[in-house]
């Protein structure tokens, strides 16, 4: 696979901008995205710079890339840089090569490009700086900053759902997701095994998904009725 060399900032401007603010305003995720078939026609539209195809591409893969990247990078800026760089490289290759041999494997291609970007980020990050002992404690943005998936409306729906869960389930979710506590410790405290912990999480997330989906459908209908 031939990839463009890393010169993101210089090249980004030649493509439709995928800046975070624009992404936030236009491409903010809905819980369910319309599924697209990645075929020759889709790739062709991307190559031609079709706005609708680019919007779908940025929205569909933008979310997946953030989810992938944030497990491996803690800084929001590094995550955003890697996402942008992946977009730029994928579009660059598509436009330079005139497409993909297997268009239906576009997702695998995006993932592979992102892996390369990640490896380069790791390599460039291995040159560490020694920090002075009296340096102020840095703010851990990776752990505390609100993600782009969080909205006021969704939080209201989730708050309502959480209030209906048992105290135990709510406490498990808090310790698991907010406190990032060791899962074995949680299992010991609540006397459950790891499989059952996963089942409880699966159920809670499934209920969450239904609630969020319904909420967004209602909001969409309300918006449509108001227009």
């Amino acid at each position, binding site marked *: 696979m031939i990839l463009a060399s890393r010169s993101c900032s210089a090249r980004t401007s030649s493509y439709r901008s995928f800046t975070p603010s624009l992404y936030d305003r236009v491409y903010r*995720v809905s*819980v*369910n*995205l319309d*599924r697209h078939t990645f075929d020759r026609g889709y790739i062709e539209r991307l190559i031609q710079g079709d706005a609708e195809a680019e919007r779908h591409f940025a929205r*569909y893969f933008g*979310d*997946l890339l953030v*989810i992938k990247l944030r*497990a*491996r*990078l*803690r*800084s929001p800026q590094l995550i955003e840089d890697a996402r942008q760089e992946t977009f730029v490289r994928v579009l660059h290759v598509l436009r330079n090569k005139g497409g993909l041999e297997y268009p239906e*494997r576009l*997702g*695998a291609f995006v*993932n*592979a490009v992102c892996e390369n970007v990640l490896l380069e*980020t*790791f390599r460039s*990050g*291995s*040159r*560490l*700086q*020694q*920090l002075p*002992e009296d340096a102020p*404690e*840095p703010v*851990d943005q*990776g*752990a505390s900053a609100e*993600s782009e*998936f*969080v*909205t006021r409306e*969704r939080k209201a*729906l*989730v*708050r309502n759902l*959480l209030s209906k869960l048992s105290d135990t389930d709510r*406490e498990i979710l*808090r*310790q698991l*997701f*907010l406190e*990032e*506590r*060791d*899962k*074995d410790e949680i299992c010991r405290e609540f006397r459950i095994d790891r499989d059952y912990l*996963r089942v409880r*999480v699966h159920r*809670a*997330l499934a209920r*969450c*998904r239904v609630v*969020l989906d319904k909420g967004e459908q209602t909001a969409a209908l309300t918006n449509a009725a108001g227009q």
Partner: protein
Amino acid sequence: MDHKTAEQNSAVEKYLLNEFTTGERQEFEAHFFDCPICADLVRQGAISIDNIKGVFRETPARGAVAGRTARPGSRWFSWVRAPVLVPSLAALVLAAVVSYQNLVSIPRLERPLVLSSAVLSSVSRGVAPVIRVDRKQALFNLNFEVDSPQAYPSYQCEFRNQVNNIVLSVNSGEKKVASFTLNLLLPAKLFPPGAYEMVLRPDSSPNLELRRYDFVIQNQGEDH
């Protein structure tokens, strides 16, 4: 990984709960970037988790667990830790996270120190690498290849000798990525010749062992 295997193994939940090894994580990512069903489940799960976190952040913790959210001493400024079992040496500068370069000048050291560029990988049932320590120097350096399945804010490195006593416990300092080379300067005094292991854990989950590294210390100029 195919979709059926992903379903049977609860891959979506394991992925969202960071239960995969680096290899498994990459395998599942290669799958869900290509599988619209798994991609939807991962996306919806991530959205749900982030909003659950958002709600909890605004809600005070219940009394029973409130203390757990603040872990005193786990933050960055405690990056140099005194070893638990060697309090008499606590005043000594025990370890330092160093910049990755071949020549550094360490405060309070008369001579510059040439650092080794050898990197130790985590245990893979092979022969433990031999590190030769120059006893004329107060410090020697070890480089560890870290590839954590998840990017944690910082890590705890626990060094144990061959009789399983902790000789040193060091905090990695803040890390922004999951894969990096951890460069440590260690006091030679604490590492007489012998076999050692270093256990790497997330600072936030002291019971979770991420990686284990074996190595053998010998005195420079001696062959065994």
